[in-house]
């Protein structure tokens, strides 16, 4: 049963914002849904879910061993979703990879599709540093590291292979088993009706313009910031001030050195050009 949609992104690329939009669209209430709504649908790499579904403590397995079980974890999740007659929308930061048995972590036979959120890596670098309360140099290094990964230590989430920014995008774009819809963060900000609407169409949901407009208003970035200020948000790191930070385009200009910009651009040039972050003349568009 193809009943899981993967909401995929490098960290801080609009994934959570989109989940709030989708939640509003599906609920279709006059009032905005609260952040609690998406707190109850954890990330695909949630370690508690792993232990409860697989019956093994993931922190007593190596990351590679955990990856053996992840396809089955999602198959079991799909069975549960099938009983409930619904579709599950699961956030993930994993690159599209195979485990040591050459099996994709995200099985095709249970997947309805994937929405990939892509954001200018220069802004990702800055926003991710704020989120993880690390020096920008750390996230800068991460974005260029083909072996970059998240979590998977002694607690928290399962290990997620990120790879470099360009390889993460490529891994999903080049796989052929799962239908994928690419969405630019910048388009979500600048052309919300067309962009969010395209995802609704891709997901096969009923397209209703009034509902779409309401869901966009009810998941406005500033509104999410206010909700977080008021009630907190459990996806924020403890030492980070705000999960919903600036949300703007081109923030990197305030934080990255010329050398850092040059290195990120050089390393990710082709992918950045493909997604319009570099123009035909080789200049940054933002």
């Amino acid at each position, binding site marked *: 049963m193809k009943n899981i949609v993967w909401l995929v992104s490098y960290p801080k690329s609009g994934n959570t914002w989109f989940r709030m939009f989708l939640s509003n669209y599906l609920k279709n209430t006059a009032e905005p849904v609260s952040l609690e709504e998406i707190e109850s649908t954890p990330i695909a790499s949630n*370690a*508690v879910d792993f*232990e*409860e*579904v*697989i*019956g*093994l*403590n*993931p*922190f*007593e397995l*190596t990351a590679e*061993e955990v990856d*053996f*079980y992840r396809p*089955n974890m999602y*198959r*079991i999740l799909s069975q549960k979703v099938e009983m409930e007659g619904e579709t599950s929308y699961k956030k993930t930061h994993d690159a599209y990879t195979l485990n040591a048995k050459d099996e994709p972590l995200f099985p095709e036979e249970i997947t309805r599709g994937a929405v990939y959120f892509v954001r200018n890596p220069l802004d990702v670098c800055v926003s991710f540093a704020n989120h993880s309360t690390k020096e920008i140099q750390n996230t800068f290094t991460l974005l260029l590291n083909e072996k970059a990964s998240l979590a998977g230590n*002694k*607690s*928290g989430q399962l290990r997620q292979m990120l790879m470099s920014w360009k390889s993460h995008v490529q891994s999903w774009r080049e796989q052929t088993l799962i239908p994928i819809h690419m969405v630019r963060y910048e388009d979500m900000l600048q052309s919300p009706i067309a962009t969010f609407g395209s995802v609704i169409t891709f997901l096969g949901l009923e397209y209703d313009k009034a509902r779409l407009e309401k869901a966009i208003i009810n998941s406005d970035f500033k509104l999410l910031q206010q909700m977080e200020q008021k009630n*907190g948000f*459990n996806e*924020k*790191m*403890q*030492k980070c001030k705000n999960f919903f930070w600036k949300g703007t385009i081109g923030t990197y200009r305030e934080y990255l050195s010329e050398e850092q910009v040059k290195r990120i651009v050089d390393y990710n040039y082709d992918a950045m050009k493909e997604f319009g972050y570099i123009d035909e003349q080789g200049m940054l568009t933002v």
Partner: protein
Amino acid sequence: MCKGFYWQIWFPLEESFAQSYNFHSYHQTYNMMTDFPIVMKGIEFSPDEFEPLPNPRLSFPHLQVDERDFIMNINHVASFRVRDGNHVCIHPHENADSASIQLFLNGSILGAVLHQQRILPFHGCAFEYNGKGILICGHSGTGKSSITAAFCQNGGRFINDDITPVRIKGQGTNIIPIKTKIKLWDDTLLKLKIENENFEKIRPTINKFYLPARESSSAELHLYHLIILGKHNKDGFEGNKLNGMVKYNALRNQIYRKMYLKGMPETEKTYFKQLFKLASTVRVTQILRPDICDIYETMNCIKKEIDR
């Protein structure tokens, strides 16, 4: 039945369950000493992979569960079969190391044995503090073992790590000591200022170690207070005494390997009654600690709740 060598070690007991000693048996073919925290009729090894169970109630590619039969396959370690709460059969995989087999035997497999014996196992660490039986439950990675170790440095007496069976009889609810060994990460040893004197690793690839127990309690002890430990992203601690159905549901969520019960509906029914009794007799407090915080600070917060 398992094929291959079979060592049957029988301990005549009034009840077929835990005593204050461990079950040791040596398996010559595999040159392995298994150490199981509760008494069993037999732990045997099989050179052959197990045949799948016929029509199990719960069936996943790595796991099959029925009321009295259970098979779990752990990649590159072993397949385990548990029957009637009294027989464990192990089929080690090629090149598997004995530490890994031992670890899972004393974890997920022990959980299956306890469920088959219908002894309610909680996902938690137990210790005695000021004569009171304390059980700290919570998901893996919340710090149960670290805090238990900290208590044991400060007057507590260690009982169980990670899995704690509770006996509910009449109005009494007792922690059953099964003498699992406390497991601590390398950085936790440092934080607790415990010198790693060549402690045994739980697995060759994992930097977590068995802490040799200095003193541990071997008699059943009344369960006085059950703490459900969780983490949040705030800077302070939050404590919340649970009551009513919230308390019952929270207790149910602390059952070790609760998912096995999907294949064991009769066992689940017996737990239903036991949990209600437990909920009516035991104090239950949910404590949320900051994701990043000091182990002793958490210990002090729990102390306050116990003394309250």
